[in-house]
């Protein structure tokens, strides 16, 4: 039952600090490794040349944007079910980082689209769902900010996150269906089935780096929230 021991903000505070420091260092190391692989080990792409290297940011950021939302919803649900303040704080701490990665995914996707598809924006199913995900994050953050009573804010935002997470697959599939039905020009991310091993390795290393970064940043943010609410 160690978990409930750490459910108290006071006991969680030092633990969070330790984990954050460790994850921060690891994230920096992995990012360095990932960038090295991305720029010096991975070969030039046959069709896209050098521009494809944006993939080492774009795909990990997109993965993080979705992963963080699910984790956020998990903490939100836990907070609603167990009525623990710290769980709700974790959810709130994750939101800004999640929104940031969503924006990064959109930004890098857009800059990748210009040289490859010829335009900064296309209503590609993935970009469109990513945009909607950004709005879901904004909604969560805005709802929390609009409610003054902290307890109501926690619980209302938690419910919103849960409703949102149920909808994310629905939104994704409906947009994908819409996109394939309307597809004029053939646009598809060149994720060739056989991706060079170095490319895949680079993506995974960067994804791990982003993941550890998210953990570190969220834990520091939770520490701030604990201090601010004391």
């Amino acid at each position: 039952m160690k978990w409930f021991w750490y459910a108290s903000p006071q006991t969680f505070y030092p633990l969070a600090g330790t984990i954050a420091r460790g994850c921060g260092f690891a994230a920096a190391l992995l990012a360095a490794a990932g960038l090295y692989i991305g720029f010096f080990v991975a070969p030039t792409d046959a069709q896209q040349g050098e521009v494809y290297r944006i993939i080492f940011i774009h795909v990990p950021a997109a993965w993080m944007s979705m992963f963080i939302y699910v984790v956020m919803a998990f903490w939100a649900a836990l907070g609603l079910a167990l009525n623990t303040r710290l769980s709700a704080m974790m959810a709130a701490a994750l939101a800004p980082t999640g929104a940031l990665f969503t924006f990064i995914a959109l930004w890098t996707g857009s800059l990748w689209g210009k040289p490859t598809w010829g335009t900064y924006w296309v209503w590609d199913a993935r970009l469109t769902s990513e945009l909607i995900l950004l709005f879901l994050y904004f909604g969560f953050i805005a709802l929390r900010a609009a409610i003054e009573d902290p307890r109501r804010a926690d619980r209302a935002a938690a419910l919103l996150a849960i409703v949102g997470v149920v909808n994310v697959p629905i939104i994704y599939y409906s947009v994908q269906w819409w996109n394939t039905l309307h597809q004029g020009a053939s646009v598809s991310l060149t994720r060739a089935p056989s991706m060079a091993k170095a490319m895949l390795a680079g993506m995974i290393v960067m994804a791990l780096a982003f993941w550890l970064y998210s953990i570190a940043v969220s834990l520091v943010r939770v520490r701030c929230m604990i201090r601010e609410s004391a």
Partner: protein
Amino acid sequence: MSDVYIWGSYAVTFALLAAEIALLARRSRRAEEGNRGGP
């Protein structure tokens, strides 16, 4: 030519991450001081 896009992507990404870290550091510092020097 395509270097612009690569630079634009990486630069903006790491700038945003750095900004997040910086803002968080400032918030952390304020939270620490607030509790020590507060009433």
